């Protein structure tokens, strides 16, 4: 039993290595490319705009998929953040709100 539990299939290990290589290529690739391009003021402004654009593009589909309750709770997180300026308060407010909405609705 222990032996079976701790065994590793050779083909599966190959998959793990290939997935690790693919992920590392993504993690390091963008960084590497930006080191080969001279950073003009225009490119610097583009890079500065990148984080916000990534965040917006990540959360909008999640909000739409999650429906009205998720959208309202994410808006609440933004409002709490704007008022309190502390991430953990915003996150916990959204968590408590969504847990309460769900316990009443299903």
């Amino acid at each position, binding site marked *: 039993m222990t032996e079976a*539990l*701790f065994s*590793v*299939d050779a*083909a*599966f290990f*190959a*998959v*793990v290595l*290939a*997935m*690790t290589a*693919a*992920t*590392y290529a*993504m*993690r*390091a*690739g*963008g*960084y590497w*490319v*930006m*080191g080969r391009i001279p*950073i003009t003021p*225009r490119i610097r402004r*583009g*890079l500065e*705009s*990148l984080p*916000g*654009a*990534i*965040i*917006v*593009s*990540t*959360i*909008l*589909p*999640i909000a*739409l998929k*999650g429906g009205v309750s*998720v959208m309202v*709770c*994410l808006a609440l997180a*933004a409002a*709490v953040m*704007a008022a309190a300026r502390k*991430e*953990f308060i*915003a*996150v*916990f407010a*959204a*968590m*408590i709100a*969504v*847990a309460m909405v769900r*316990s009443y609705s299903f």
Partner: protein
Amino acid sequence: MCLPALPGTVVFGAVFGTVAAQKGLTILETVLINSFVFAGASQFVAMEVYKDPVTWAVLLAMVGVTAAVNMRMLLIGASLRPWLGQVPASRTYPSLFFLTDLNWLIALREYDKGERDWGIYLGSGLFMWVTWSVSVVPGYFLGSLVSDPQKWGLDIVMPAFFVALLVPLWQGRRQTISWGLAGVVAVLTWQAFGGYWGILTGAIIGAFAGAYLDD
């Protein structure tokens, strides 16, 4: 500093352990894939296409979805260049293994506050990696206990954290326009193709808009 992300990461990791157990992986295989790949969403999608025995088709499918889901890391890594570019390459390239959305967000927040010590990025990355690596083990053995993370609102932790970090990044018209364009393109892409392509297209459009909008 990493604490708001902790419950979400622990539960997310534990759920991966449960999924891996259900798919018939051994504990060692589960720990290997979890700690080596270290990219939550892509691991879940890869487990969806996993089949035993592993054929070339299964291998290619798993690597393909992993690359697709993690493509956003190209842009996240690019955005770190102005900061980590001053650190010797022999240190930054190993440290990029620990690049995740969360420690990128944490590092970004500190950078905006004026922090220039890249140890913030590396330390939070190592912290996330240890948390992620450990959390998978209880999930593998006690899967049923976290079967319903939604009930506790744990699925909202990540997006709420993202929203909270977005708020201080807003400065004016340039952000409003570039984020608006990013959002429209991301949602259209998501509706047309599903998956994670919207992060890529939206982010690129948003960066271009930001680069060409003059204040």
